């Protein structure tokens, strides 16, 4: 039948072949919908203002305009932020057992004159008051403080990662299809792992601060649980994808699931695990800083405090410290990763 039909059909002249239109009603419809969404969301998020003020700023920068909103803002901020504060000043009268003959390293005593206006209750007028006080200036006091806080954040990142690994090991075991004790546990573990990943650490830190109080514990737990979600997923996938051969051999000689996992799977997936861990440490350092902002300890908490007190000079020091830390950590983890790859290809 079909052959007959084929015979009857005359070859059509290529000039009459049906061509697909590059655009059809569906494309136009989709474009309209997208356009409406963009207009609507753009209006809500003040995109036009963003564009106009950026444009204004650009004109300002090249000298086409006297001033601009952004230009003024950044200038003001820059003026306030510079120079970065690295010293720490303390009034002598507030130091309990001050010993002028035994000053701490890199510090000296300075006279500070403060002028402020006060309402005089007798004359009922504002009067200028001159107050002179002695302060102890620690030259690098604030810098040292920032470095200490930074170190706290690094510790939070480290312990967050350790907690994540510890929590994720049983989760990975239960959420890998070929090792889970049974189906319900497998599904429960998978759901739990997704849940851990789905809760942003900033949110969980907010609640953990309520539960555990201000300080590093909340930060460690927030990072730990979130990253346990990552590790749980990655570890489980690697376990599932590991070469079955050696595992079957071990299971066939009664090694049992856990020992098989240790000897048949773990050596295979180890390099991958190290790579994940490096990646998570790297991101945890950044996140440890962020969760500090909601009170979970470390440099973030310091940053938030200074920001709220308008101490922009201090903020500047913190930002520089952040940049240096994150940058050097990036270089370090790249180095480790590289040597790992070399080791792998050996």
């Amino acid at each position, binding site marked *: 039948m079909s052959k007959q039909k084929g015979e009857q059909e005359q070859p059509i002249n290529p000039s009459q072949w049906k061509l697909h239109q590059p655009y059809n009603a569906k494309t136009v419809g989709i474009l309209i919908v997208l356009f409406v969404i963009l207009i609507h969301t753009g209006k809500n998020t003040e995109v036009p203002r963003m564009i106009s003020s950026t444009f204004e700023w650009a004109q300002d920068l090249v000298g086409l305009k006297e001033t601009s909103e952004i230009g003024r803002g950044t200038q003001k901020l820059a003026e306030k932020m510079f120079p970065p504060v690295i010293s720490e000043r303390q009034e002598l009268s507030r130091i309990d057992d001050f010993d002028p003959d035994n000053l701490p390293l890199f510090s000296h005593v300075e006279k500070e004159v403060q002028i402020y206006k006060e309402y005089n209750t007798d004359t009922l007028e504002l009067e200028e008051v001159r107050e002179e006080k002695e302060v102890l200036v620690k030259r690098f006091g604030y810098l040292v403080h920032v470095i200490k806080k930074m170190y706290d954040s690094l510790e939070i990142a480290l312990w967050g990662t350790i907690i994540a690994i510890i929590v994720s090991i049983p989760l990975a075991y239960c959420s890998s299809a070929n090792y889970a004790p049974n189906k319900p546990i497998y599904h429960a573990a998978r759901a739990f792992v997704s849940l851990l990943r789905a809760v942003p650490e900033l949110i969980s830190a907010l609640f953990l601060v309520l539960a555990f109080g201000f300080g590093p514990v909340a930060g460690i737990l927030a990072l730990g649980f979130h990253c346990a979600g990552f590790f749980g997923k990655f570890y489980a996938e690697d376990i599932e994808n590991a070469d079955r051969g050696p595992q079957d*051999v071990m299971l066939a*000689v009664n090694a*049992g699931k856990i*020992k098989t996992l240790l000897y048949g799977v773990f050596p295979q997936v180890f*390099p991958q695990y190290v790579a994940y861990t490096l990646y998570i440490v790297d991101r945890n350092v950044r996140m440890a800083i962020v969760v500090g902002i909601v009170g979970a300890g470390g440099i973030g908490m310091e940053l938030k405090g200074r920001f709220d007190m308008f101490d922009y000079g201090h903020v500047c020091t913190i930002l520089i410290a952040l940049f240096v830390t994150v940058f050097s950590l990036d270089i370090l983890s790249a180095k480790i990763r590289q040597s790992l790859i070399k080791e792998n290809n050996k």
Partner: protein
Amino acid sequence: MIQLQTLTKQYPDGTFAIDDISLEIQEGEFCVLLGPSGAGKSTLLKLLNGMVTPSKGSITINGKTLLPKALKEIRSIISTIHQNFNLVTRMSVEKNVLAGALSKVSLLRALFGVFPQPLRRKACDLIASVGLEEKHLYRRVVELSGGQQQRVGIARAFILDPSIVLADEPVASLDPNISRNVLSILRNAAQRNNTTVLCSLHQVDLAKEFGERIIGVNKGKIVFDGTPELLTQQDLEKIYA
């Protein structure tokens, strides 16, 4: 002794991989399973260590019927050798051999990688007996040649003094000279321990050279069973029909 009675394995898709086989293998025999691809050799070997469950018939090993509840006990006297070695390539030779004895090592020891000293000595003896040297002990398996890797596989198979070794095409990925070397190492190890070996091969010359007994299989049925001297051209035609 291994006894198979009217053993049949039909896979879910309907293929009869093993079709009504009855067979008896004596202790210490070195049996070669000879057959073309798809004959059912792998399936037969998997049936013997319970990796595949029979659809019909029974398997009796040393008087014990292979049933799910006896599986653990039977597996403790069987070990396996594979075509693609199935070693953990990133792990050292020593650990790979010791991994064959995990059932005899406590979980705590396994976790910390502290194997009992006598077991480690035994692993050394075995590694030496398959022709490897001290310098290979802590080498990762990836850094060994194919023939050396399979010798590690043999050492692992013998670590718990199994009474039965099942070898599924142990030399399929090795070149002929090395295949001979590996098979003679396997035969020697088996003779020393009076181990029953069931070894599938697809090379006729190797089967004749190493088998004390050849079992020819084709399409899930036994088409020849006897000593290599009895294997005629006609039998070979039946096997490869």
